[in-house]
């Protein structure tokens, strides 16, 4: 039962293609993320007050449990959401310890935002960064294995703060957005907390330390101790709970960005990004909007333009027509600025990079015509997206015209 890439469907409401990561289109052609948004708009009036009450209970519990210790860990990248999380925690009288996994991909303004948190918010901050040599190795491994050089970030951001919380016996870990709103994985009334399975499956893509050691890069178990999670028993003993702030307070990133800019001096991007129109996201990592996201386009035929436009269509900042325009303008753009940095950083040629990219194209999106990669776009048109670089014997995976 192979899906024909030429007949790929897009959500009728936003601009997601049906094969978007963890997304489902229903019988009416509306995607699970739009359905979730509808659900959030139709919440009954008691929903947020009830959730706030739940948060109040958690705050009292954490304070009672921690006494002379930090009440909570807040994992921060220094982005707009980090500022909002800390702002909320302070508002509720919590004593937070900020924890950062530093992946060494900060834009200067992103780094300044990170450093400013101690000043602007008056909080303690722990920054952890793996050895740069080891990061380069992890970049290369991630790129080759799964077409994601930023795998180490997605993993480290999620694992390291939990180690800190468990080792220091801190009861609460306050994460930010309910990340599943991207695909509509959970519902508003699912009271979702941080758990190992979602991190393993979605952040780590099913790869663990075992896949990163004993190979050509020579990393050892000791190099990557931070990649492994604390044991189930430790989580149970300390009762450390990870919660998502977006589960308790209405979440509007556009609004939050302006709020923290006004209140705490949060800086937006100095230069517009090459692959999206938003300037307040992903300052902590130049590659998230750059080559990491370009690989998403290579794999699944959509990128950050689609992500941001879909969110903004749902929350009424853009019409679908405007969203489609943004997608056509940004999704396919090959980034130059951060690609140059990365190739130099890890010692790879652009040809090697392009060849690896091409090996990850999804046959549900791409087909081959006259040795060109073809794709149906969100506006119904078909375009070619460059020369096919995979060897002829691998053509059989794709529809060839």
């Amino acid at each position: 039962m192979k899906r024909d890439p030429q007949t790929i469907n897009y959500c009728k409401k936003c601009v997601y293609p049906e094969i978007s990561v963890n997304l489902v289109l229903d019988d009416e052609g509306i995607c699970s993320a739009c359905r979730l948004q509808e659900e959030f708009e139709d919440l009954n009036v008691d929903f947020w007050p009830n959730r706030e009450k739940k948060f109040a209970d958690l705050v009292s519990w954490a304070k009672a449990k921690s006494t002379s210790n930090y009440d909570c860990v807040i994992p921060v990248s220094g982005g707009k959401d980090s500022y909002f999380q800390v702002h909320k925690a302070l508002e509720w009288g919590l004593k937070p310890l900020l924890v950062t996994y530093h992946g060494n991909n900060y834009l200067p303004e992103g780094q300044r935002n990170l450093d400013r948190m101690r000043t602007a918010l008056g909080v303690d901050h722990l920054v952890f960064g793996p050895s740069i040599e080891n990061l380069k190795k992890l970049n290369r491994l991630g790129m080759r294995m799964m077409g994601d050089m930023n795998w180490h970030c997605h993993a480290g951001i999620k694992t390291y703060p939990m180690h800190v919380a468990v080792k220091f016996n801190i009861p609460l870990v306050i994460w930010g957005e309910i990340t599943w709103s991207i695909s509509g994985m959970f519902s508003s009334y699912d009271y979702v907390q941080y758990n190992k399975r979602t991190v393993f499956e979605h952040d780590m893509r099913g790869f663990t330390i075992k896949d990163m050691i004993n190979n050509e890069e020579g990393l050892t178990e000791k190099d990557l101790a931070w990649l492994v999670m604390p044991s189930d028993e430790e989580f149970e003993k300390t009762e450390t709970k990870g919660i998502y702030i977006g589960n308790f307070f209405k979440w509007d990133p556009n609004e939050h960005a302006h709020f923290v800019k006004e209140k705490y001096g949060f800086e937006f991007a100095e230069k517009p990004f090459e692959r999206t129109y938003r300037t307040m996201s992903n300052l902590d990592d130049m590659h998230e909007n750059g080559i990491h996201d370009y690989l998403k386009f290579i794999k699944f035929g959509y990128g950050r333009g689609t992500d941001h436009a879909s969110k903004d269509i749902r929350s009424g900042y853009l019409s679908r027509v405007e969203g489609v325009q943004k997608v056509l303008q940004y999704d396919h753009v090959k980034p130059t600025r951060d690609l140059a940095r990365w190739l130099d950083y890890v010692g790879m040629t652009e040809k090697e990079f392009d060849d690896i990219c091409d090996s990850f194209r999804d046959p549900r999106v791409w087909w081959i015509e006259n040795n060109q990669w073809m794709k149906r776009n969100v506006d119904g048109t078909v375009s070619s997206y460059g020369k096919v670089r995979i060897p002829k014997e691998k053509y059989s995976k794709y529809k060839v015209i």
Partner: protein
Amino acid sequence: MLKKRIIPVVLLRNGAIVQSRLFKRFQVLGVPSAVVKRLSSWACDELIYLDISPGGSYSFGREDLNYPELSGISDVIELVSKSCLMPLTFGGGIRNIEDIRFRLSLGVDKITLNTAAVENPSLISEASKLFGSQCVVVSVDAKKNTDGRYCILKGGKELQDKCPVKWAQEVEALGAGEILLNSVDRDGTASGFDLELIEQVASNVKIPVIAIGGAGEWSHFEEVLLQTKASAVAAANIFQHSENSVYNLKKYLFDKGFNVRKPLKLSHLSSNL
């Protein structure tokens, strides 16, 4: 005195594990096997794994994950039974004795019948003669019709003019070993179990009834144990929402003095799953 069982249910649809709402809306949770590994580490009493795929697709379709590409249901079952450290019940797409035999040969302990039980009730008796009644679970999905009477739904889609209590008694007479009783109207609502339905069915048959549909908090499980004769309480979605979920639920019930198995000690080994 037999212990009351707590049973997580995993739903597979088109190659992905999903949450289900009212049998209509589905949300992707992840790949077919990771969740099984996780549930195994909490020492669940059993696992019920249901294939609710409308088409015959078992591909997750992601080459950027550390995950094998599966081509059919046998791949799924093999993978699942490899990572499953508890008794495994498998359901979905079973039409005849061969289908059952094949699944048992791959390491499944019990099977569930839904569509086939309605269309071909003699399969129930045949299967229980061949494999023992302990192997045959009949899945009964109850839904209120427009008059507000409970009827059963065949294959998750077609409403039958059949009352779940009567149907439960029929399948019991045919040799079914257990009944998995779901309430379609409560499915994925997190609003609590349909206690009335559960009690009606459980008090009219002698075989164990596993109740599912509507769990939203631990106290909902308590209500089923207190107010109905169900032998087991099951849920799908809620166990996907928090760390050590099944362990914590069992601990909650055990500490309150319910007749459930004592939660086993959790692993002291660092691990990502």
